[in-house]
């Protein structure tokens, strides 16, 4: 640790960490320096020049957002000259800025409005010819170049945090605008982060535009319900209608864009709430079904409290609890811990952001977990991280950040991990058994079967030579792999001896929580006498209008979830729900409490939870970016040590292979019923796949045989390569698929289009 730098701001003695800028220190110390283009999570754009300060011994003004202080420096943040300078900047910003605050969405929450007021710019001093510029409609995003102030926040966030790199600045002085990069129409993953960071109303959500003013919306802090990254968001709610009092509705979702990032599913896929009423008949049938059930099957789209209720029901009624997704995740984490020896705690996304060497194995990460993708992008852009992406399928979304793509054969993940362990642990000191184990590996066979060559492994080693913070990301292909246990143990070796921190990318929003709260049984796959809770069964209780008993959706209930960071995060009620919830059933069966959140304090402390009541949980970022959301789960004792097994014959997948993978922004049955997200439920394959399977674009195909057979349209996706097609799963309701390996060899039959 280098020494702190002592200097003064406005006469106050302050200390800066190495690398910290004057602005960072000032903000931490509560000293105000106005900014317009500064965004905490990106590199400074340095385009607004509002943050100028005077430094002793330096001629002219210094941009505080990008200048680190030197020892003994004396900084002045405000005086008459600086005020005049800033006022002039604001006057220039206001030249010909349309006076349409009355209708602008940003009004009331607009940086330009605030700063114009702050510097008291009441009239226009300068003149420039007004331009006629067309409003652009880019799908979910509308761009009005007339309102744009060229702060470049959007391009920075798109490039440095998201990784889409879809928009750029078209230089032209006064005529500068933001344009889609290398394309006529915006082609991106529609995360909407550019909308969030836009300080004015230039980039707005096309669905939300002109629907409500910032001050009319009630902001409800919560957590995104779509994937395991657990991103913070705020539901903005208002009552609809004026003549007839309407209902509460979510108008938009916003986030603390300075410190947190949100993908498009979180930002635009919010209207999955249900209207419900107390259906006493269905309730009675549900009670009777639970009384006579042998087991409850549930999905991981559940809060910890509900999971605990299910666990209590299991104890009271002697049921079995099925959740293959969480059970396999738990088994994977335990197997990992058995060889990782105390380094079993999965790494957080913040640790991933700070990494300079990243290996991703077993996941199409950009669509599986955007939170991880953004962390990888941030690491690549800010830490210069080398990113090795290992998967049977190349992903164009990742190509901006990936430094090395390694393609391995489907099903050979065990061999891949073994080769990685052998190669990356070759030069480090291990213990006797591990060294013996690594010696024993038949790298020739593994290399041949998995198609991962020696040169590729050498290249990884070369790239990672100087790396200080290495992270391994393990995806959900691995959890349901037949050799998942051994894969996890091999990863454990990398964690223990290679110094790799490991992110295990759980599939669903609360896979981690469900795996900790419940004692799960192995699922036999039969639906007979099984009550499904947001899952398949003979009686289905689900947040779905077609279920036998409809319960509240994730944005309609209070509760907590656990993210992949092992971070317990609170969720709040965005829209009310009139019908029954699981706690009502539990009350009838004698294990309920007054409210579902009364269970929060009873979550198992031996698994790392704290006995904290729900209402004591905070959910916000402090102005300087400290995370005050819920709490981090305590470390648990490490599982008993186990040995890795030498991989035997690796499986082969020949013929037509599909990969269960959702399109961008789609995750599950909840995202499938939102109004703004695109729902392309086609089987997507490459040109090569189409030729091999003798299919043409738009053909209707039958996938699989027997009961599992279903038909879909086939489309050729020019972004894809290779002979594996992508099959979406989001449109299959609550059909559990956590228990199958994501690649599958299937028969694809062309169905006549004439039917």
């Amino acid at each position: 640790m280098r020494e702190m730098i002592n200097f003064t701001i406005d006469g106050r003695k302050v200390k800066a960490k190495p690398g910290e800028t004057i602005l960072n220190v000032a903000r931490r110390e509560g000293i105000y320096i106005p900014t317009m283009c500064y965004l905490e999570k990106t590199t400074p754009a340095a385009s607004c020049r509002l943050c100028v300060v005077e430094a002793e011994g330096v001629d002219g003004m210094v941009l505080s957002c990008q200048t680190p202080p030197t020892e003994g420096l004396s900084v002045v943040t405000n005086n008459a000259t600086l005020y005049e300078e800033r006022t002039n900047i604001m006057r220039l910003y206001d030249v010909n800025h349309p006076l349409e605050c009355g209708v602008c969405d940003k009004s009331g929450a607009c940086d330009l409005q605030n700063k114009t007021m702050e510097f008291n710019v009441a009239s226009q001093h300068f003149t420039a010819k007004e331009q006629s510029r067309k409003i652009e409609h880019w799908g979910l995003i509308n761009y009005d170049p007339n309102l744009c102030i060229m702060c470049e926040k959007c391009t920075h966030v798109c490039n440095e945090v998201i990784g889409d790199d879809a928009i750029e600045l078209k230089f032209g002085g006064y005529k500068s605008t933001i344009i889609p990069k290398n394309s006529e129409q915006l082609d991106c993953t529609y995360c909407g982060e550019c909308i969030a960071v836009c300080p004015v109303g230039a980039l707005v959500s096309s669905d939300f535009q002109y629907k409500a003013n910032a001050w009319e919306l009630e902001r409800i802090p919560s957590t995104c319900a779509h994937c395991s990254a657990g991103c913070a968001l705020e539901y903005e709610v208002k009552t609809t209608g004026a003549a007839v009092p309407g209902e509460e509705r979510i108008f938009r979702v916003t986030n603390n864009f300075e410190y947190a990032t949100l993908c498009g599913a979180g930002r635009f896929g919010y209207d999955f709430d249900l209207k419900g009423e107390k259906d006493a008949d269905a309730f009675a049938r549900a009670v009777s079904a639970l009384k006579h059930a042998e087991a409850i099957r549930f999905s991981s789209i559940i809060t910890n409290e509900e999971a605990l209720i299910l666990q209590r029901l299991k104890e009271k009624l002697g049921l079995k609890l099925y959740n293959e997704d969480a059970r396999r995740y738990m088994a994977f984490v335990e197997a990992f811990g058995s060889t990782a020896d105390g380094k079993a705690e999965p790494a957080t996304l913040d640790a991933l952001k700070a990494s300079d060497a990243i290996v991703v194995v077993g996941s199409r990460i950009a669509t599986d977990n955007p939170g991880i993708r953004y962390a990888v992008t941030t690491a690549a852009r800010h830490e210069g991280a080398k990113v090795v992406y290992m998967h049977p399928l190349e992903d164009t979304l990742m190509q901006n950040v990936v430094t090395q793509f390694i393609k391995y054969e489907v099903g050979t993940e065990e061999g891949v991990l073994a080769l990685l362990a052998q190669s990356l642990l070759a030069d480090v000191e291990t213990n006797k058994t591990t060294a013996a184990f690594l010696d024993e590996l038949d790298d020739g066979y593994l290399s041949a079967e998995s198609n991962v060559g020696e040169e590729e492994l050498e290249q990884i080693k070369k790239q990672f030579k100087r790396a200080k913070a290495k992270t391994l990301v393990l995806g959900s292909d691995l959890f349901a792999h037949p050799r998942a246990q051994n894969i996890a143990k091999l990863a454990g070796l990398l964690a223990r001896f290679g110094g790799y921190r490991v992110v295990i990318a759980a599939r669903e929003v609360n896979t981690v929580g469900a795996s900790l709260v419940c004692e799960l049984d192995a699922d036999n796959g039969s639906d007979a006498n099984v009550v499904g809770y947001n899952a398949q069964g003979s009686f289905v209780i689900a947040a779905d209008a077609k279920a036998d008993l409809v319960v509240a959706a994730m944005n309609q209930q209070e509760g907590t979830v656990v993210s992949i960071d092992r971070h317990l995060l609170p969720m709040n009620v965005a829209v009310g729900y009139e019908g029954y919830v699981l706690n009502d059933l539990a009350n009838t069966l004698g294990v309920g409490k007054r409210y579902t959140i009364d269970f929060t304090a009873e979550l198992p402390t031996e698994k790392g939870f704290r006995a904290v009541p729900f209402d004591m949980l905070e959910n916000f970022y402090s102005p300087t970016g400290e995370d005050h959301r819920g709490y981090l789960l305590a470390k648990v004792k490490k599982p008993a040590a186990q040995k890795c097994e030498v991989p035997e014959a690796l499986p082969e997948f020949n013929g037509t292979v599909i990969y269960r993978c959702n399109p961008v922004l789609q995750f599950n049955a909840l995202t499938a019923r939102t109004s703004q997200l695109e729902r392309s439920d086609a089987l997507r394959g490459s040109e090569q796949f189409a030729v091999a399977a003798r299919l043409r674009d738009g053909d209707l195909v039958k996938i699989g045989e027997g009961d599992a057979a279903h038909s879909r349209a086939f489309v050729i996706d020019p972004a894809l390569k290779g002979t594996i097609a992508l099959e979406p799963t989001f449109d299959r309701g609550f059909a559990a698929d956590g228990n199958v390996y994501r690649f599958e060899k299937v028969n694809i039959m062309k169905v006549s289009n004439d039917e």
Partner: protein
Amino acid sequence: MSLEQFTDRNVGQQHYFKVEIDDYPQTGWEKFKQVTRRALSGELFVGLWVVMREMIKFDIHTVQYPKEKLPIGPRYRAVHEMQRLFESGTERCIGCGLCEKICISDCIRMDTRIDENSRKEVTEYTINLGRCIFCGYCAEVCPELAIVHGPRYENTSEQREHFILFEDMLTPIDMAIKGEQKEYPGFGAVTPHEDARVKKTPLAY
């Protein structure tokens, strides 16, 4: 009058006098006498005569409401009106929501959307007159002089809802085009010396 005099609350010092009031009748006989006197003395006919006399004089000072109404001040704040632009007749309201925000009795609600021409359109607008205290803030804050107070103070109808709809408050289109719409001179209106106060934006062409 000096302040001392004004604040002097010493009742005994001023020239007050007591009204002579007869004692209340105590016995039954006294009560009977009072009733008989009041019923049979001609006081009733005195009143009737006054009315009769004034009627035949045909020199009446009473306003014949509702046939006839007294003129009210131009800045009187009665039921709201929604103005249109002159000539084009377009609604002035842009849906900025400031009236909704400033309303201290929280009686204005509006719903807006984006229309086909990418402009903000007000789809629903209501004022709950049961709650409105006619303070005039909405008219004062309105940047477009769209919502104003009208002179209509007669709030009788079968239903309160008859007064709250945007359409009912809106100036009829034919009136606006004919130029019959009156500007409201109350709070928020353009003052007579506004022209002198306006600073022109420098133009490049």
